[in-house]
């Protein structure tokens, strides 16, 4: 019995080392992406015209900041490579990316919905687009049944039409009316 637990613990430890290595690979990629972006922006800022009245022009500060960022990312990336090597390299990268995405499928689905919502908002106006967004998002999270459909409908009406009225009447903040209803 104790042997099996020990084996399981060892397997767990191995798995967690592999997991750490994979997380470190993901971070390494982020260091590289951020570092390259920073290097590009730093170069771009250096082309801004210098000022005649002061030693630092408009471009000097961003050049400095993004330069520092690029150096920090380089150091972090080198350290990440060393750590990954120490952990014995990372395997099953593709599969673990898949697991990562599957665990977060609802998060990304919600974000996708948000993007579509934001794109349609100027067209459809606040009340209508928000109603549709809320209804779909709530049903996506709760699953579709008679009860959830009913609850979601009520919540969607309150927080679309209701919020719009609250902001317009009480706070004098006018949310987008939408091109469709502008006339």
């Amino acid at each position, binding site marked *: 019995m104790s042997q099996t637990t020990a084996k399981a613990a060892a397997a767990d430890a191995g798995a967690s080392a592999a997991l750490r290595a994979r997380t470190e690979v993901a971070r390494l990629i982020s260091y590289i992406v951020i570092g390259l972006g920073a290097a590009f922006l730093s170069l771009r800022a250096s082309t801004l015209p210098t000022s005649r009245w002061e030693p630092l022009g408009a471009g000097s500060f961003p050049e400095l*900041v993004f330069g520092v960022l690029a150096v920090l990312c380089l150091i972090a990336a080198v350290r990440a490579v060393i750590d990954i090597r*120490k952990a014995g390299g990372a395997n099953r990268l593709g599969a673990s990316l898949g697991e990562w995405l599957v*665990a977060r499928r609802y998060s*990304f689905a919600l*974000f996708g919905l948000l993007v579509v*919502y*934001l794109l349609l908002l100027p067209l459809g106006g606040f009340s209508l687009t928000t109603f549709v967004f809320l209804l779909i998002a709530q049903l996506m999270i*709760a699953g579709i049944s008679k009860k959830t459909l009913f609850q979601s409908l009520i919540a969607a009406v309150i927080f679309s039409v209701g919020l719009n009225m609250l*902001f317009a009447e009480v706070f004098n*903040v006018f949310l987008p009316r939408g091109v469709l209803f502008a006339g």
Partner: protein
Amino acid sequence: MMLDAFLAGAHQVFAFDTLIYMLIGSVAGIVAAAIPGFTVTMAIILTLPLTFTMGPLQGVSVMLSVYVGGYTGGLISAALLGIPGTPSSVATTFDAYPMARGGEPGRALSLGVWSSFFGTVISTIVLIIAAPPLAMIAVKLGPWEYFSLIVFALTIVASLVGNSLMRGLIAGVIGLGLATIGPDPMMGQPRLTFESSVLMPGLPFLVVLIGIFAISQLMGELEDHGKGPSSDALIPDVIEFKTWAVMREVLMHPVNLVRSSLIGVFIGALPGAGGSIANLLAYDQAKRSSINPDEFGKGNPDGVIASEAGNSATAGGGLIPMIALGIPGSAVDAILMAALMVHGISVGPRLIMDNADLAYGMFVAMVVASLMMLVVCVLSMRLFLRVTDIPKQFIVPTVMICCVIGAFALNNRVTDLYLLGAIGLVGYGLKSLDYPLAPLVLGVILGPIAETNLRRALMSDADWTVFFTRPISAVLLAAALLSVIFSIRSVLKMRKKDRPATDEQNGD
């Protein structure tokens, strides 16, 4: 002069409509923080668009009452469910939860509420005493000292928050970088806008803030969704709060109460470190100095008092550098600062001189807010317990809509909404990779201040060495260097401790 300003501020805070709004804010803060996964910061972000139409002091007072209420609300789910409602009530679960399980849920809650109240009041007293003289000194600082102060603030943020100094620094510098997009703060020359109309006006701080904190948090709430419900916690039907007896009990621990509050004030005043660190640190100190430390973790009242007084006291502490120096002590203070800027009030050491009624009004509002929190909690704590039952399907999408409204109402620009989406996705990515987000947000608000001071300094004297020859500036830069060295050392120490374990794993 001071009394005049104090009375003028009090007069505005005690206006009937302000009190009503503050009461609503207080309830909203408690409710929001009682919902696990909903942080105090998020509650304040959502309050912000509602305060645009109010006067500056009224708006800030409402946000302060959400803030004070929020620090207490986290206690409810911490004590009864064992889940910290906000990150700043993690240590509260250590003793309040066992006490509640042990048959005294009312005592646990009342202890927390009273400790929060006294913690806030003590921190406000320190704030009133410390902020004006600090501001007097701060006005005399030149651009060299200011720039060095910001460098120091950012290194402290990076080393205190999160698990990695390097990622903290990277996040802080990303924030500084984001703030350089758009017109430059001195001459208005467009920078790094790539001729895009979205980037032309720069990245509005509040849109960055909502995207980075709220959108990423909401997306995070749905991770692992559908894996089955979490364990149900039992909330007893009858809870006896014994309000007054517990108040006496809290006052019977004056040393612990004052020590924890002062820890909270100090931690709150450090840029970037907020309630979550103060909560743990105050608890730890209480345990260390207790005569029977073994009792901690089993429902010891001292543990509850320390953790709750500690996190609530950061509210007043965080306002000290904001009011005196114009440097926010936490993300929440950064939002308060931004809210004042929306009203055209520049926050800095001159705030207390130019807008004394506003500064003193904020002090009054802190005390009023903590009193309201106390009254609301004592009268209706039971109702708030129901809040923890609201399912995610309602909270996540509706809060997201509130974020969208907040980002839009700031400038009435639809392009801000596209920025919100993009920044939200970036924030979620950074959060998933364990980058701390607070340094980034502070970087965005401190960036323009740092740049303006750096350029002013070099305009009056093009010599870089002045930064090291002016004594205060040199001390601040040395402190920045020390804080980095110190945290690198502690990381190395931790690695040494970990090494045997990793070697073993490699051997497998």
